[in-house]
C-alpha cells in the first residue's frame, strides 16, 4: 500500500537537503534509487541553480531550498492530509522527546552534587541501563517507522540504519549511541527527523 512517492528531481534535492551534502551514491542510498538516475537529477538541479557542486559532493543552494519550500506542500499534500501519517508522526515525536533526554544521560552523568559531568564510561551499570532504555525506545519506534515505510518505502532505509546502529551499541560499540563521525543512533535519528519535518511541513518542537 505504497501511497506517496514524489518525482526524482524533487526527491533527489530533498534527500540532499536532508543529508546537507553528499554524492549521488549517498543520496541514492537514502532514496533507495539508482545512483545514475540520481546523478542525472542532481546535475539537472545544478543547471537550474538549485544545487551546487559536481561528481562527489553536491549541496543545495538557497534557490534550491526556496524551490523545495514551494514544492513541498503540493508534492506531499497527500501525505500531509493522511491521518495515518499524522498519527505516526505524533508517536515519533513522543519517542523523540525521550530519546533526546537519553542522549544527554548517555553523555552527561548526573554527579553526586546534582551537576552533570561527562560520562567517562567507568560505571558499566549506568551505561547498561541507558542501553536498555535505548532498546525499549528502539522497539517502540518500530511501529511508527513501519507505518512510514508503508506510506513511502524509501523511509524503510532509516529503520535499517537504526537497527544497524542499535546492533553495534548492543555489541559494545559505544560510539554508535551519539558519535558524530559514524552512522550513530543520534546521526540517523536526526536525519530521519529532518526528513519527516520537511515532508510533513512541521516545525521542530525545540530549536535543533
Amino acid at each position, binding site marked *: 500500500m505504497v501511497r506517496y512517492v514524489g518525482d526524482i528531481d524533487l526527491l533527489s534535492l530533498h534527500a540532499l537537503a536532508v543529508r546537507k551534502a553528499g554524492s549521488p551514491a549517498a543520496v541514492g542510498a537514502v532514496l533507495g534509487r539508482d545512483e545514475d538516475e540520481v546523478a542525472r537529477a542532481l546535475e539537472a538541479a545544478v543547471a537550474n541553480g538549485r544545487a551546487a557542486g559536481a561528481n562527489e559532493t553536491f549541496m543545495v543552494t538557497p534557490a534550491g531550498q526556496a524551490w523545495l519550500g514551494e514544492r513541498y506542500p503540493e508534492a506531499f499534500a497527500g501525505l500531509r492530509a493522511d491521518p495515518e501519517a499524522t498519527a505516526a508522526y505524533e508517536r515519533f515525536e513522543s519517542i523523540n522527546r525521550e530519546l533526546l533526554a537519553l542522549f544527554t544521560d548517555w553523555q552527561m552523568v548526573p554527579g553526586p552534587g546534582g551537576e552533570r559531568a561527562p560520562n567517562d564510561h567507568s560505571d558499566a551499570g549506568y551505561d547498561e541501563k541507558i542501553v536498555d532504555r535505548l532498546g525499549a525506545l528502539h522497539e517502540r519506534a518500530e511501529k511508527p517507522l513501519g507505518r512510514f515505510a508503508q506510506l513511502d518505502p524509501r523511509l524503510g532505509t532509516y529503520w535499517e540504519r537504526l537497527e544497524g546502529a542499535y546492533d553495534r551499541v548492543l555489541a559494545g560499540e559505544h560510539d554508535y549511541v551519539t558519535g558524530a563521525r559514524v552512522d550513530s543512533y543520534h*546521526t540517523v535519528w536526526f536525519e530521519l527527523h529532518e526528513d519527516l519535518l520537511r515532508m510533513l511541513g512541521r516545525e521542530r518542537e525545540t530549536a535543533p
Partner: protein
Amino acid sequence: MTAVADRVVVLDGSTSPSREVVGNKGRSIARMLSLGLPVPPAFALPIDECRRYHAAGGELGDETWEAVLAGLRDLEERSGRRLGDPARPLLVSVRSSGAVSMPGMMDTVLNLGMTAEVEAALARLSGDPEFAGSTHERFVEEFAHTVLGADPDEPTPDVPSDPLDQLRAVVQTVFGSWSSRRAKAYRRHWGIPEDGGTAVIVQAMVFGNLGEDSGTGVLFTRDPLTGAAEPYGDWLPGGQGEDVVSGTHDPLPLGALREQLPDAHDRLIEAGRLLEREHGDVQDVEFTVERGSLYLLQTRVAKRSPHAAVRTAVDFAEEGAIDRREAVRRVSAEQLARVLAPRLPEDAAESAEVVARGTPACPGVASGLAVGDSDAAEAEPGDVVLVRPTTSPEDVSGMIAARGVVTEHGGSTSHAAVVTRALGRPSVVGVGDGLAAELAGRELTVDGTAGVVYAGRLPTEEVEPGAVPGLTELLAWAEELCPVTVADSAPELVDLDAEGLGVEGDETPDRAALTERLRGATAARGSVLATAEGARAVLAAGVPAVVRLPGQPAAALLLRLVQEMSDVEEGRNQ
C-alpha cells in the same frame, strides 16, 4: 520431584546463597543480611525456576507457584502484614536478578498488592490520600507498561485487581524477559549461553511517609565531591522511595537526620562503615526509616567526582583496605585528565569582558577566532570557535575542525550539545538571537563549564599535582610500580608521530605494528603513548623510557602504563 522448600530461597540471613542461584541482586541482599544489617524481608525464586519455566514452554508450573505462595507466607509472617489486606496491607517490589546483567530483562515493579481497598487503607495510615492515590496510579502505569507490554503512546489497559493475579503475572514476565528480543540479541553478541536464566526477588516495601518518624534518603560513606572521609547524604523526612532519586523534592542534609532521629542516624553510619569495609570501596546506600526503624534498600559502589576518585583511592590504600596498585588503577585516565585540565583563573569573570551567556553544553575551555560557518572553520589555519544560529549534520566537519562551539538557539539536548559532547569540544548553546553574526571575526574564549563566552583569548592555568589532595602520593606510587620511566627528554628516541604512527582523529595505529617498531628502542615519544594501545605496545616491547610531548602530562602517561600493566598481568583484554 523437588520439595517446595527447595524451590524458594528465603532471604533472612540464615543462608548465604550464591549469585548462580539467586542472581546479583539476591546476592547483594543476602550479603547485607549476613552482616546483620536491617533489610526489608524478601525471598527469591532461584534461577532454576526460570529454566523450568522455559523448559515447560513458557508456563509457570504448579510447583513453582506453590513455591511463590510459600515464600509469600513467610514474608507475611515476618512483616506482620498481608498482601491485599486493608487492615494491615503488605506491598511488595518484584525484581529480576540475573547472575549476569543484560538489557531486555524486566527490571522492577514496585507497590505490587495495590488495590482500591489498599489505597484507601494507605491513605488512612499515612494521612496522605494524595500519596496513596499517586502510588496506586504509578503502580497501574508501571504494571501496564512492564507486564502487559502496553505502548506508552496508547491508553492504559486494565490491571488485575487481585494481588495474587498481579504477582503471578509479574513472575511470568520476569522469567519471560530472559527470552526477550533484546536479551537474546545481547547474549548472541557476547556469547552468553542460552541455558541461564534469572531469579525473581520479592521484597516487602517499607514506607518513609508513615508518620513523623519516617523518611527516606541516600548515604554516601565519603564525600563524593571532595573525597573527604566523612559521611555525606540526603534526608527527606516523610519522603517515599524514588522521591529522593527523582529529585522532585528538596532533601535536607544528613545532619537533619542526626537531629531528628539520632538512633537511626547512628545505625545508618555504622552500617555504612560495615558495607564500606565489606566492599573495599565508597558505598552509596539507599535507606528508608519507617516509624523510627531503619531499613537499607540497596548499596552500590558510589559515583564520585574526579577529585574524589584520587583522594579516596589514596585514603583506602593508606587505611590498608586496598594495595597501592589497586589505588592507581581506580583513577581512570579520563578522571586524571579532568583533574589536570587547564582552567581559567578564578578571577577571569571579573577581569574579562563577557560577550555572551548561555547553557553550558560541553565542559572545558577553548579559545580561537570566531567563524560563522563550517567551511571557514575548516579553511582557517589557526584555532577557531564556530559560532552558528543552530547546527545540523552539515556542520559536523566544522565542529571537528573547531576548538569550541557557540550557538544562538537550543538547549542541552540540541544537535550542537549532543555533537560537541561526542567530540569533546567545549560549547555554550542558546546564547540568544543574532549573536552569531555579531561575534564572527572576534577572538573568543568559550567556557563550556560555566556557560560563558569571553572576549579575547584568555590564558589558562596549568594544575599542579600538589594542589590536588592525594595526587602527589598517587603519582609517587605509580612511579614506583611502573617499569617504564617517564622523562622530559632522551638522548636517543623513536619519534612515532614523525614516523606516521601517531593518532589521527580517533584512529590509533595497530598495536602489533607499534610493538614491532618499538622493539629494542631505548626511549619513545608520540601522541599514541597516551592511549591504551600505545601503553601496551611500550610494555610489550620492553621500552625502558617514554618521553612526553608538550601538553602530554607525565602523570597521564604514568597512570596509563601502570593500569595497562595490571590488566595485562591479570589477563584482561581491553
